[in-house]
């Protein structure tokens, strides 16, 4: 069964090579090659999952990649419940996104290039999931970063896309720097890269406590880079420059989850150093709250969902930090479904609405896109965490785990973030699908300036829209509406599947279920052993069933958030954001994402580019200067000597005889014996 995993991983790579080398000119064919490859991988993954469900346990097979003295690097596959789950999630979401992309990227000139990169991405992500040692994970980790660079910068002609791609790569690379240091630290002490052996080494205490914490924090540093945790979150919102299916696959379901997966895979490190757990929990919690607050003030449909992703990832990290391994992973799975659905839904809206992304130019689209609307509402409910939906079960588990770990502060942050999540989700739903059509809705395909969140004051004056844009006449809007229609089946089918999953997936985690998610994916204590204590805790936790206080608190907050959204946006009459007035200056701060980007840019422009310019100047003038200086010095001395050679015969004679005079003086007065000998020697 294990070598099936090799096929799961390498099929998409085959697709990538086939497309980029052979079938590049044939668009349709390239699309189908990737879909077939990922589909096959999906089927095999499901087989692996079923086999894993039948007989759970870790199975590993490795192949010698590089051995050099003490350094042994393997290319291996490690299958255990965690990996099996992730395999299915990744391949399923990837398959749905590929199908969806055939329509979304329909008339794009880079069609086959897009599917080639999608194949490469799926290969790297699957490789990352099945990796059995740190270095192999780092290799696929970087490859995934590469694919995200290529796909964000897919429309490389757009300067903003190219800049976003570079930003994404550099920020995640910054995280990878930490991850690499962790690997080197662990290898330095334990002499191995393999996860099992490292966990065993840590358990046996061969790693000093300080080194364990350092390694754990560095690993988390890498994970924070990839999963866009604060302060390395800045690249994800900009990554929305890429095509929407890319955002759906990479920046919602799979790649960003890699950070959480990494922490889960190396959980042995974290468990044996309480300090690192604390850091992970609090950074996770803070990121969740931080991102949620920003999300409520965004105007771009994709950026709202992006910040929601950062917030949910914060939840997962908080869960792992609080010891809720199962909760974190379960939320990872459910989140993948409804977040992918949200992005694909947003993509469907954008596709059909003249590629417009600002929610304040939409409004009342429910009539035209019923399926998209309904599926997005399901996703919003799941994301907010209302009872029957998947989000509720995973988020509830997280809150329970946080409460059990005793971080009450985090518990209330989590609950309040649930409120914010519900609020911004339904702000989006109400503004986009319900209420009156916006006065600034686009009538044709020409690109319109970004109007951000129009303020009620601006819209007060009749006819004048934000930034002086004339309100669109009713007649023009009616004519534009004729173009609006539901997306084709290829788009709506994945939406419906994901919506179904967003509802059903939650039930697998029903507390107390005999073969529930908790009994399948759990952290079995140190290494493969599975300490008795962990076993008992898990059994007790599973049997406890619902933790009623948490259920009530979380649902109450969600409903409150929904109500607030309905009050502010459900009954609005104009395309203007009342929240701007309520929060005033705070709103503008949120809208500008706490000015984190601006700070980073300022820092880079001053210290990094500035430093580089200074050093470049130093190199050009001082180091070069010295070299040229020596050259000039020699030339100068040469020039001096030339004075003696000015062509006058008499000048030469003069010098000649001065020398004779000096010689004679020396001979006569300093060496009398010598001169006597010379003069007297005639006989």
């Amino acid at each position, binding site marked *: 069964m294990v070598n099936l995993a090799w096929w799961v991983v390498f099929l998409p790579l085959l697709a990538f090579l086939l497309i980029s080398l052979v079938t590049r000119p044939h668009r349709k064919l390239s699309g189908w090659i990737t879909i077939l490859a990922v589909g096959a991988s999906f089927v095999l993954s499901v087989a692996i999952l079923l086999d894993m469900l039948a007989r759970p346990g870790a199975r590993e097979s490795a192949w010698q990649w590089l051995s050099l003295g003490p350094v042994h690097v393997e290319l291996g596959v490690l299958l255990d419940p965690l990996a099996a789950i992730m395999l299915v999630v990744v391949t399923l979401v990837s398959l749905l996104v590929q199908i969806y992309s055939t329509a979304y990227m329909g008339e794009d000139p880079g069609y086959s290039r897009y599917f080639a990169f999608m194949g490469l991405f799926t290969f790297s992500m699957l490789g990352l999931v099945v990796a059995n040692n740190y270095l192999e994970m780092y290799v696929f980790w970087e490859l995934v970063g590469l694919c995200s660079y290529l796909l964000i910068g897919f429309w490389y002609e757009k300067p903003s896309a190219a800049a976003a791609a570079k930003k994404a790569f550099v920020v995640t690379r910054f995280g990878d720097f930490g991850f690499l240091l962790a690997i080197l630290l662990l290898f330095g002490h334990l002499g191995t890269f393999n996860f099992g052996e490292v966990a065993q080494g840590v358990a046996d205490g061969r790693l000093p406590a300080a080194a364990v914490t350092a390694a754990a924090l560095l690993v988390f540093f890498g994970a924070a880079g990839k999963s866009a945790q604060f302060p390395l979150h800045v690249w994800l919102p900009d990554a929305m420059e890429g095509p929407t299916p890319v955002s759906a696959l990479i920046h919602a379901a799979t790649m960003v989850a890699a950070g959480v997966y990494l922490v889960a895979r190396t959980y042995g490190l974290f468990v044996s150093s309480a300090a690192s757990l604390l850091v992970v929990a609090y950074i996770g919690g803070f990121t969740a709250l931080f991102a949620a607050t920003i999300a409520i003030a965004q105007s771009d449909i994709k950026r709202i969902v992006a910040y929601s992703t950062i917030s949910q990832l914060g939840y997962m990290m908080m869960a792992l930090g609080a010891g809720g391994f199962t909760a974190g992973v379960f939320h990872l799975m459910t989140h993948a479904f409804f977040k992918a659905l949200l992005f694909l839904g947003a993509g469907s809206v954008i596709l059909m609405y003249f590629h417009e992304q600002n929610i304040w130019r939409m409004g009342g689209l429910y009539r035209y896109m019923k399926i998209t609307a309904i599926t997005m509402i399901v996703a919003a409910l799941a994301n907010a965490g209302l009872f029957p939906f998947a989000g509720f079960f995973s988020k509830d588990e997280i809150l329970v785990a946080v409460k059990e770990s005793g971080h009450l502060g985090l518990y209330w942050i989590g609950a309040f973030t649930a409120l914010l999540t519900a609020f911004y989700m339904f702000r989006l739903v109400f503004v986009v699908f319900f209420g009156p059509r916006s006065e600034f809705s686009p009538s044709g395909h020409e690109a319109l300036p970004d109007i951000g969140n129009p303020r009620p004051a601006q819209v007060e004056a009749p006819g004048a829209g934000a930034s002086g844009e004339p309100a669109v006449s009713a007649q023009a809007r009616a004519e534009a509406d004729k173009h609006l229609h539901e997306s084709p089946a290829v788009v709506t089918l994945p939406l419906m599947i994901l919506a179904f999953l967003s509802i059903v997936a939650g039930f697998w985690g029903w507390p107390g279920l005999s073969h529930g998610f908790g009994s399948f994916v759990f952290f079995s204590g140190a290494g493969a052993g599975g300490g008795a204590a962990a076993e008992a805790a898990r059994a007790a936790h599973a049997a406890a069933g619902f933790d009623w206080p948490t259920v009530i608190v979380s649902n109450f907050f969600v409903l409150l958030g929904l109500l607030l959204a309905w009050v502010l946006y459900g009954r609005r009459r104009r395309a203007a954001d009342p929240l701007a007035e309520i929060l005033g200056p705070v709103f503008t701060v949120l809208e500008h994402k706490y000015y984190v980007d601006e700070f980073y840019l300022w820092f880079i422009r001053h210290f990094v580019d500035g430093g580089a310019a200074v050093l470049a100047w130093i190199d050009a003038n001082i180091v070069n200067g010295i070299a040229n200086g020596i050259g000039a010095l020699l030339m100068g001395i040469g020039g001096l000597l030339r004075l003696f050679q000015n*062509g006058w015969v*008499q*000048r030469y004679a*003069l010098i000649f*005889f*001065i020398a*004779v*005079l000096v010689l*004679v*003086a020396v001979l*006569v007065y300093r060496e009398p014996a010598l*001169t*006597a000998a010379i*003069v*007297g020697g005639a*006989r």
Partner: protein
Amino acid sequence: MSTDQLGSLLVFAGLAFLVVGGGLGVVFFRNVFHAAVSMAFAFLGVAGIYFSLQADFLGVIQVLIYIGAVAVIIAFAIMLTRRGDMAETNRFVSPGQLALGALTAAGLWVALLGLGLSQWPGQPAQAPPLPAGTDLTLSLGQLLLSQMALPFEIAAVLLLVALVGAVLIAREDHPGQGRREQPGEVGKS
């Protein structure tokens, strides 16, 4: 001092005066032709010195060649390169070079004078008398054609080469020499 010593001293003084005066004349006369004439007198003085040293053959040669040939050639040269006002032809170079030149010459004179006058071992106070009947010219001739035959021949060749060379250099039309340069053009050729 005996009378003949006084006599020879007087003769030497006269000759010395002639030589040094001629030398100074060469240097200090403004007109280069007067310098040439004073040079001739200096050569005459030198010839006298030879005779006073009983080197009569050399004295004759000195007169014959130096005064007869060299002085004459120099006179020709002066005549050939005569330009305008003769008085201005024999001037000194720039004062800096002049001072340096004078200093060097004087320095050399002082240094070597000290050496010359100092007593070095084996210096004969008085010139040893020549054995009677020694014919300087005869012995010189024998020496020249016996031991010194080779240098003698080489000297002959040298003279020939010099002769031909001088003629070639001073020829009027130099093939491929191009136009004359004006004084202003320094080092541009």
